[in-house]
């Protein structure tokens, strides 16, 4: 296994999570999560809907507070950060939302300019325009620059959402269900884009998905989540080469769904 054979340095540890718990009322969503993510590694968190995958990455970027446990991102304890420190950390952590979360009232250009002009005030208008065009070119959607989000397809919206996070040049990318609601061909394009982003921008990624193709194509390491806990971690083959009925069922039903498509 590539990850195990690598000579791991402390500085290579980008995300370090220990004993993470989170509940919403009586609903115990995360029940003791441990996870290490290393530099330039793509970790896929795989599991059924409602198992707490999205909650995990929202805690990583400080959108939610954990009940207990340790979340260390780029050497910083997320839950102890003040507002200003958290904002500085967020410049290094890109988050691609399941719904893309593009700003409805802005064009694609304005969507991309929005975080850039507010976080890099020294940039001239020309530099801002250049960066927008460059990142749109990276996701293959330069032609949509003046369109409104409502004029874009689901796949295009996902790409623009990814472009908007990439414009700040983050070290870590968090993808929340990048292929959900997309047709198989567009899903493959998004998977390829995730790999392209990793190679071009040297990002470390956590990809939340229930899509096996996405997991296999993009993940170096798979963390299988069930009922708020990781029940197995390893490469794709290691995770699915198991007698665990829960993992076998997940594989079987996902496979049947893909056959139907």
């Amino acid at each position, binding site marked *: 296994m590539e990850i195990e054979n690598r000579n791991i340095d402390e500085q290579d540890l980008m995300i370090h999570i220990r004993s993470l718990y989170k509940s919403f009322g009586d609903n115990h969503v995360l029940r003791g999560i441990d996870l290490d993510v290393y530099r330039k590694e793509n970790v896929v968190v795989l599991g059924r809907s409602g198992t707490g995958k999205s909650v995990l990455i*929202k805690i990583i*970027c400080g*959108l939610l507070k954990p009940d207990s446990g340790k979340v260390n991102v780029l050497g910083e304890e997320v839950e102890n950060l003040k507002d200003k420190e958290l*904002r*500085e950390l*967020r*410049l290094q*952590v*890109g*988050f691609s*939302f*399941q*719904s893309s*979360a*593009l*700003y*409805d009232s802005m064009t694609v250009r304005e969507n991309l300019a*929005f*975080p850039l002009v*507010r*976080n890099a*005030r020294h940039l001239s208008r020309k530099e801002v325009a250049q960066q927008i065009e460059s990142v749109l070119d990276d996701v293959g959607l330069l032609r949509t620059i003046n369109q409104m989000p409502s004029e874009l397809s689901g796949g295009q919206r996902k790409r623009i959402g990814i472009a*908007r*996070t990439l414009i*700040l040049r983050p070290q870590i990318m968090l993808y929340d269900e990048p292929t959900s609601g997309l047709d198989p061909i567009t899903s493959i394009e998004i998977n390829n884009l995730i790999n392209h982003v990793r190679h071009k921008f040297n990002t470390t990624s956590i990809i939340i998905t229930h899509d096996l193709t996405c997991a296999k194509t993009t993940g170096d390491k798979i963390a299988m989540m069930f009922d708020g806990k990781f029940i197995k971690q390893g490469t794709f083959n290691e995770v699915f080469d198991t007698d665990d009925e829960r993992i076998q069922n997940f594989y079987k039903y996902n496979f049947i769904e893909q056959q139907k498509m």
Partner: protein
Amino acid sequence: MSLKKSGGIFITRKIDGFFIDLNDALQFVLRFFKELFKPPYEIKEIIRQCYQVGYKSLFLITLTGFITGLVFTKQSRPSLSEFGAASWLPSLVAIAIIRALAPLVTALICAGKVGSNIGAELGSMKVTEQIDAMEVSAVNPFKFLVVSRVLATMLMIPMLMCYTGCVAMLGAFLNVHQNELTSFVSFFQAAFDKISFLDIFSSLIKSIVYGFTIGIVGCYKGFHASNGTEGVGKAANSSVVLSMFLIFIEEILIVQITNSFRV
């Protein structure tokens, strides 16, 4: 569990919920004042919101203000004529419009149009994760969305109130002119004869307070929207209801305070 006991738990939870919401709302208001003076300032967004609040409410405000002035004059005439005091009509109308009607009508119209708009817009941004997207892009959504909108309502509602007052007085003049052939100058001389600085000042203060109320309630409800599209509708609706309720409470309080200054 007995019915009495479960009823007791229900009431306790409701009371707890009320105080938790009240605390949330107070924190929200305090955060507004904290963020208001902190740079960077979103000047462009404030101007855009001023345009949204001001210009886009103009037609409705014009119509309502004009009708208010016209109808109020028409309805007051018979009672005053009965006592042979029809000549007092301009000053009576001016006092009513400047002290109460203009600020109140403007605030209620804006609570319906602007407050619901803010509640729905921010509510939909909340449920579609656009506010979270701002947060994770290291942009302060409170500053961009809340401070700009509340400032815009605080700036524009006093201006709209002045405009409503003018349009309502024009409506009143037309009615008076139609019946008594009073000239424009003599009508306004008679009207402003009884108006003091305190009347205008208290109305301005009132409209700033109403503007703050409409903006902050709309933003608070929008920011706390949940449960998808249903939540957006609820946010818009409750923004209007709560704003109107608070505006009436504030009206009573401000009238009491300003009356204590009158000789």
